[in-house]
């Protein structure tokens, strides 16, 4: 089914924004964060205006309404990701979700000499927690390299690395290259080796239907804000087997069963990991985002994004001096197109694109090992989502061509 992009755009008030320099905003920084539809903004406002209260604590009407909304959002989000509410732990985002696996599972279940397999493609959020754990417990961390020609993972190297691994942590889709990894194969190979699998789906979830039960991973980390939800909320999806192996990460109120001056006992399941006042408005907002997204087929969203990313990548290649990092034409690639100009420094290029109203990301994208593998300090990145149009990318190419002519 073809998406009605104009109708979709009408749901996002920010997209009609005129910037201070008089230019129409063209938002191509979706891999950093997506914009929010009006229904998400409205649901969060409705909570604050009508039933703002703490959840899971009191018996008054507002508290009941807040608790019900928080838990209904959990049901809706869990359903969207093909799992049950009891397998969904709210976190602040994918970063906290990965740290939760590190602190709440790995520290209780891994020991000195165990092996964790990462890839060169990982975001720092999926590297630094494991480096810290490695220092603390004497765990070996292995990195699967990328092939610099195809920008894909070296699966032969993965096969060797996973052989005696205890845990495999891999990104579903690279935030820099837009490359979607062969996660089904990675999960299968990891299982065959007896390794547990953590998928970082921060970039994957906005681009394809993630089904936790179908994939069979042990852990999946997701951020809401890249898929139309608010910032400050995300989740860790955990299999029932693994959640039973987990121990407390952060401690305090709500996660306890009983506290005495002699010590404490803890709740079971997701409650053990959701201490303190929950992110109630954010969870409700994410629930609204998931409901909004559910009206579409994620395959249609992927196809739309892939079409404009692929076209943009091909057109950019025609501009003298531009080099693309990744392969936007790959049918599995998401909407991230990383590029550099041979003489215009990336930060300068981002400034100059901003003069035309184009919001792109610049920097190492929290993926310095990948930058090292690519042999560059940073890239520019245009990343597209459901509301971006062919007209926008055409005007982008026109502006980029002009910038390259004038400033190189």
């Amino acid at each position, binding site marked *: 089914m073809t998406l009605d992009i104009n109708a979709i755009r009408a749901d996002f008030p920010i997209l009609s924004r005129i910037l201070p*320099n008089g230019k129409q905003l063209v938002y191509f920084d979706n891999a950093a964060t997506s914009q929010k539809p009006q229904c998400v903004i409205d649901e969060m406002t409705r909570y604050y205006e009508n039933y703002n209260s703490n959840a899971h604590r009191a018996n008054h009407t507002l508290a009941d309404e807040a608790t019900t909304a928080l838990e209904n959002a959990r049901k809706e989000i869990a359903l969207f990701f093909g799992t049950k509410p009891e397998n969904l732990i709210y976190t602040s985002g994918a970063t906290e979700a990965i740290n939760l696996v590190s602190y709440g599972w790995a520290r209780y279940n891994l020991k000195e000499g165990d092996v964790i397999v990462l890839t060169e493609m990982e975001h720092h959020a999926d590297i630094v927690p494991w480096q810290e754990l490695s220092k603390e417990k004497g765990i070996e961390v292995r990195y699967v390299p990328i092939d610099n020609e195809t920008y894909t993972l070296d699966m032969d190297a993965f096969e060797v690395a996973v052989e005696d691994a205890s845990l495999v942590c891999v990104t579903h889709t690279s935030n820099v290259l837009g490359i979607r990894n062969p996660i089904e194969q990675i999960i299968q190979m990891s299982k065959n080796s007896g390794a547990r699998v953590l998928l970082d789906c921060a970039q994957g979830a906005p681009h394809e239907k993630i089904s936790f039960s179908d994939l069979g991973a042990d852990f999946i980390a997701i951020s809401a804000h890249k898929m139309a939800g608010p910032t400050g909320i995300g989740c860790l999806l955990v299999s029932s087997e693994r959640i039973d192996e987990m121990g407390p990460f952060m401690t305090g109120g709500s996660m306890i069963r009983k506290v005495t001056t002699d010590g404490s006992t803890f709740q079971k399941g997701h409650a053990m990991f959701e201490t303190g006042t929950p992110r109630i408005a954010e969870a409700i907002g994410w629930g609204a985002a998931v409901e909004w997204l559910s009206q579409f087929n994620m395959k249609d969203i992927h196809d739309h994004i892939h079409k404009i990313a692929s076209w943009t990548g091909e057109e950019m290649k025609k501009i003298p001096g531009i080099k693309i990092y990744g392969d936007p034409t790959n049918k599995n690639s998401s909407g991230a197109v990383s590029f550099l100009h041979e003489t*215009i*420094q*990336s*930060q*300068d290029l*981002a*400034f*100059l694109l*901003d*003069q035309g109203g184009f919001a792109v990301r*610049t*920097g*190492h994208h929290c993926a310095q090992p990948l930058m090292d593998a690519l042999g560059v*300090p*940073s890239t520019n990145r245009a990343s597209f989502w459901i509301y971006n149009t062919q007209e926008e990318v055409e005007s982008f190419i026109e502006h980029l061509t002009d*910038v390259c002519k*004038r*400033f190189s």
Partner: protein
Amino acid sequence: MEDASWPSHLSPIIEEFKDCFDSMERYELLFEYAKKHPSPLPLDEWNEENQVLGCQSRAHVKCSLDENGFFLLRAGADAQIVQGLMSITAMAVNGMLPIEVARLTPKYVEEMGLKSSLTPSRANGFLNMFNRVISEAEVLSEG
């Protein structure tokens, strides 16, 4: 200084930027100024001590007094926009007393129509370098 914000010899440069047709023309002019740095810091002198930290570009600043006790700003950046702004800043502050430099504000950048270079989100670029110059000028004026 005729104004507390910038020295008088900077005014013709500011006027040059004000005469630009649009922001793209202003940035073209800024790229030209990046090539005219009166006291660039060569690459082989870029080190951790003089690096201004930031994640998007490399920038280095070295402030000292010349043989007559006047301020000398040497700077280098891989981003031409930052280098251009530092070039103009060097044109402004070189030859001034450190105490005068310490009183400088980046208002001249705003006046040139390049206000976006001063927003906190760009702090890893020019604004951090400017703040470094001011704090080094404060130290040099005390010495």
